[in-house]
């Protein structure tokens, strides 16, 4: 599903590579936590999986696509098979909840009929069926992240990439979001989630990949956040 082979990524102006000979295999249906300090390379690795960047060396295969050799014009079509959520939600403030979700389908050319069916469905799934006509500013942080999750999964992606989705939320709200992501995973979607949230990782007991200084220092099938330092 996702295969990263001895990938090195250097950014201009920094002597140490952000990723140094990283290899990682993720199977269909996996739920993987990427943990590690800031600057350890979690975000760089996610960017490579999303083909926002290409590595200096090594190969990245996602969903059967060789992302290193993928021509720029085919990148949009690759991204339609992924769902992404971020710490800062990235909603459009002048569109309602339903319009935010519909927008992501409109721009990839889905029919009005499909949109009218899919949007209420997915909003029901994330528990926001009643709030379809609210603006993001009228919602709590947890609800906004639910909208972002709805937008990410409305097109039924095979993989969900989540970059610190609970980073801006309080513990109780985070638990709700994690329950939602867990149910998305149970429905068959592969989940890769970068996080700093120790309690979540410890509680979920899923695969944990720990990065430090651009290298994988731990890869456990069921693990916790790591030793307290």
């Amino acid at each position: 599903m996702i295969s990263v082979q001895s990938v090195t990524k250097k950014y201009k102006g920094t002597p140490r590579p952000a990723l140094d000979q990283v290899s990682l295999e993720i199977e269909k249906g996996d739920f993987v936590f990427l943990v590690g300090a800031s600057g350890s390379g979690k975000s760089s690795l996610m960017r490579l999986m999303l083909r926002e960047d290409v590595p200096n060396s090594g190969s990245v295969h996602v969903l059967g696509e060789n992302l290193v050799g993928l021509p720029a014009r085919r990148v949009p079509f690759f991204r339609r098979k992924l769902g992404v959520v971020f710490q800062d939600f990235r909603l459009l403030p002048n569109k309602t909840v339903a319009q935010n979700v519909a927008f992501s389908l409109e721009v990839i050319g889905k029919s009005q009929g499909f949109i009218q069916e899919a949007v209420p469905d997915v909003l029901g799934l994330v528990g926001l069926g009643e709030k379809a006509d609210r603006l993001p500013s009228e919602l709590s942080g947890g609800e906004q992240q639910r909208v972002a999750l709805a937008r990410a999964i409305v097109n039924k992606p095979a993989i969900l990439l989540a970059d610190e989705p609970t980073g801006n939320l309080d513990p109780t709200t985070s638990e709700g979001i994690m329950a939602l992501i867990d149910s998305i995973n149970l429905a068959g979607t592969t989940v890769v989630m970068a996080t700093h949230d120790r309690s979540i990782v410890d509680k979920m007991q899923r695969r944990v990949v720990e990065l430090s200084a651009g290298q994988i220092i731990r890869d456990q099938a069921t693990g916790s956040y790591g030793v307290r330092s």
Partner: protein
Amino acid sequence: MRFGFIFSEVAQGLRRNIAMVISIILVTFISLTFVGTASLLQLQIGQMKNYWYDRAQVAIYLCTDISPEATCPRGEASEDVKIQVQERLASATLAPFIEEFYFEDHEQAFANFQEQFAGNAVAQYVKAEQLNETYWVNLFDPNQSQIITESFTGLAGVEEVRDQRSYLDQIFNILNIASLAAISVALLMLVSSVLLISTTIRLSAFSRRRELGIMRLVGASNFSIQLPFILEGVVAAFIGSLLSAGAVLGLVVFFVQGFLAERLPFTSFVSLSDGMLVVPLLIAAGVVLAAAASGLAIRRYLKI
């Protein structure tokens, strides 16, 4: 990508940037009006050339008593001179080039002069014998006036051989300079309209960078990301070029046909159909420039 969605994106972009859009419309309008005016001037020059070159004659002016000593030492041209000129015009060497020629004596020249300058003070002072007797020559091909000039210049009793086209060329030079000036202004204005369009599109893209980010994230194709912005520039420039088309046609109808043509009845002027010829050129120029400018401007927002 559905048409309705793109249309609403374009309308939203135009509304959001209304001041910039109006300035694009105005700048394109002015610049293309200059382009149109320059094209019409060129058409006018072409038309006048056709009309007047065909009618241009070569004049062989004979000496009068008041001609300058240097060219006419013997004063008024004698009958012998006239016979000589006439024979030479009718000779086997020149005849094939000449469609017709006729002689204008002092009295006819005086009558023509009085008619031309009726009401002008000079008509009262000039006397018949001061005006040159002239052989007017129409050539089959007006470009070959050189032949006449060479045969008669320097002949005793001939004051001057003059191709009327030399007068016309001065007029055409002035018109050419005017159309060059119009083209230069048009070019400057077009440069500023291209810069204005790309700035506006950048602004528009910047104010929608959230949307652009999300579009890229969810996998909108480059084409569907680009299209609303390109259309935004094109729509604004299209409105500007329509206005300039209207201005150019108005210029033809009200100024050229309504004003000039009535006051100068013996000149052929550009007509509405010539104006219609320029209109598609203006619209195409506006649309193509806007599409290119906004396409280039949006390109850097498309980097993946």
